[in-house]
């Protein structure tokens, strides 16, 4: 029997969102016997809903509620209402993530110490180090099933598309070339099958070989009887008592009915756009600039990685669509080497697109047509592709704000996502384009396409961790500096983006936060 908790039960932890952060936190709490309600804005999908069809799945699972792009990035024009490409559904963006499960590097926790002041940027050290997080990374890798040392699972077999990147990188003298770590089973494990090289990882894994809270953490949490997941429940506002402690959330259900769920602790894990939006929308007479925002940093320092795509036409067929979408990484450029003309580094991650998406992205926006585009698409079979994922420096003006007049379908002010690349990002992107040109030319490509950033799937930093309350929103446990029983449990905690895909770090932080919450709840501190 599915557990049901009373709206007036004020002993519960209320978790907003069910993705990498929220879904993991719910299960970690449930395993400790701590009761929680998960309010998820999206619906519940099953593996039967997963199709190998790019546009169909885009329509089905994406977060398409009203949002606006702004700032100097190309998407302000070419993706004006789709700044981010994330999922609305139980499991959140772990439904469509590609499975790359990298740890952040030591220097990436110490951005300020490593780089010093950088003009135009608002960088800061995390209040934790790699050493603090290592045990939780290991736990996350075991739970998610990450190929490599921790689990002993071999990395995935190399598919055609990755072999192109790997050989090109090798010819260019690189040697950090690997088909992992990936949170995709290379052998049957944990009740889930091995990868069948189906492709379409970012449309949802049809067989569940890729880790997702949709079919791992959420069912495990529910099985304990300590967790109730309420899909189609969009949280409108977090409320607080006279002392400034939060005491519940107001949400709207599938029928448009508004409820208040009381809470002992509230954990916000709605992704780096929704989480700050919720805090800003929760303004009150006591918290006039939004909840937990005495620093003014809520919504600021929005980071989405310095990204770009490169597609090369190879001399022989590749069939990049065959197999795991991102199973292959080159890390040689991910280290900090300012002699390249920028600080921090970037990953090269093999990324295949199907013909439907490639036709939309090869030249994005209204100008992406004509003979050149058509002729390139005729060579689809010969194409190989890569995604560049680099450090995106925190900048104060890259931020989430509330639209002054436009409201979403729930009547909440819509979010405006402002993003302007820093010169460091521009230099890094150009360096990465050049690196990829060399790599693809070394394997015989004579035709190479540079693609600008896609709508962001990696969204980070808008409620960042800081040692001092004036520099950020939450402390090293993800606990709001201003409100003791309010936590942030998603990627919006990130102080820096690093060059690694964020999911593993979000999961590690959630496991660590659950441990802290468990102690604090038992001791009566919360």
């Amino acid at each position: 029997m599915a557990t049901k908790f009373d709206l007036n039960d004020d002993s519960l932890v209320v978790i907003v969102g069910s993705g990498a952060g929220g879904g993991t936190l719910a299960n970690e709490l449930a395993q400790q016997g701590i009761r929680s309600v998960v309010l998820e804005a999206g619906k519940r999908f099953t593996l039967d809903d997963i199709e190998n069809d790019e546009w169909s799945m885009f329509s089905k699972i994406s977060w398409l509620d009203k949002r606006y792009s702004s700032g100097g990035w190309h998407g302000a024009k070419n993706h004006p209402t789709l700044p981010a490409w994330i999922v609305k559904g139980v499991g959140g963006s772990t439904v469509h993530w590609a499975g790359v499960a990298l740890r952040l590097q030591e220097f990436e926790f110490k951005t300020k110490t490593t780089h010093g002041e950088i003009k135009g940027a608002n960088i800061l050290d995390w209040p934790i180090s790699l050493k603090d997080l290592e045990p939780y990374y290991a736990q996350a890798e075991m739970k998610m099933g990450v190929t490599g040392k921790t689990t002993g699972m071999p990395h995935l077999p190399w598919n055609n598309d990755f072999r192109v990147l790997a050989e090109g990188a090798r010819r260019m003298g690189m040697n950090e070339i690997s088909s992992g770590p990936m949170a995709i089973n290379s052998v049957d494990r944990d009740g889930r099958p091995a990868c069948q090289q189906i492709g379409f990882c970012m449309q949802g894994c049809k067989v569940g070989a890729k880790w997702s809270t949709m079919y791992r953490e959420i069912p495990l949490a529910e099985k304990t009887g300590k967790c109730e997941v309420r899909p189609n429940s969009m949280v409108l506002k977090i409320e607080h008592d006279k002392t400034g402690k939060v005491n519940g959330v107001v949400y709207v259900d599938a029928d448009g009915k508004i409820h208040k769920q009381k809470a002992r602790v509230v954990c916000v894990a709605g992704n780096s756009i929704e989480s700050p939006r919720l805090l800003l929308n929760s303004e009150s007479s006591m918290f006039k600039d939004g909840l937990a925002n005495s620093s003014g940093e809520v919504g600021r320092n929005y980071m989405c990685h310095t990204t770009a795509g490169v597609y090369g036409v190879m001399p022989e067929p590749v069939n990049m669509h065959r197999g795991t979408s991102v199973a292959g990484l080159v890390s040689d450029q991910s280290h900090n080497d300012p002699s390249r003309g920028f600080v921090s580094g970037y990953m090269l991650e093999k990324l295949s697109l199907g013909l439907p998406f490639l036709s939309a992205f090869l030249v994005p926006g209204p100008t992406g047509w004509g003979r050149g585009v058509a002729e390139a698409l005729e060579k689809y079979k010969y194409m190989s592709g890569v995604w560049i994922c680099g450090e995106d420096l925190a900048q104060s003006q890259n931020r989430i704000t509330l639209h002054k007049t436009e409201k979403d379908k729930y009547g909440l002010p819509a979010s405006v996502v402002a993003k302007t690349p820093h010169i460091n990002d521009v230099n890094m992107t150009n360096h990465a384009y050049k690196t990829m040109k060399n790599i693809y030319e070394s394997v015989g490509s004579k035709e190479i396409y540079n693609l600008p950033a896609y709508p962001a799937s990696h969204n980070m930093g808008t409620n960042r961790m800081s040692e001092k309350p004036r520099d950020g929103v939450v402390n090293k446990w993800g606990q709001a500096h201003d409100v003791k029983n309010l936590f942030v449990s998603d990627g919006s905690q990130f102080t820096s983006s690093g060059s690694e895909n964020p999911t593993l770090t979000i999961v590690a932080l959630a496991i660590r936060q659950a441990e802290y919450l468990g102690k604090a709840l038992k001791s009566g501190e919360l």
Partner: protein
Amino acid sequence: MIFNWENLIPKISVNFITNKLSRRQILKGLFSSSAFLGLTAAGPIKSSLANAPKPFVFKDEDRTFLIQIAKDIYPHDDFLDDEPYIEVVDGILKETSTDEVLRSTLLVGLSALNKDSKATHGQPYVKISSYGAREAMLRRIEEGAFFQKIRGGLLFGLYNNVKLFPKFGYEGSSWEQGGYIDRGFSDMTWLPQDPRVKGDKK
């Protein structure tokens, strides 16, 4: 259904003269694949007259004109025959029977394009033999609703069309066949294999 344009592109209508979205239309929803594509697609918004029977105002020459534009947007000269372009154009023309905004958009768009063509080259668009000249005229209107309606139809009708996937070497949905684990996910012979396949330790 293969070509699911109707479900994918939201019902956004664009004022074809000012090319600006009305506030109501923005409120109605700009948040689907059209935003993704940067399209400002004209789509069916039904007015009070929408269900009234309308004379079919498009002539054969309009259809020929639209097909030429379609082929100029994504030219695949010897690669594709005309059929998929015709399907897209006929689909759009069919929509005009219930969508008077779209009907006007097309009529005004065709007329404006021919006006430009006559002014620039002294003859109608379909008589211009140079692709470059035709492309230049389309580039001038590429951000407008007329152009993007046709382009949006083509993106789905050419590149999201299961019937045409084999032409491009794209194989579409694979899970029903067990993925590619036994069907060539790593069948390239012109570059080295995964080092582990030869027994190398990685």
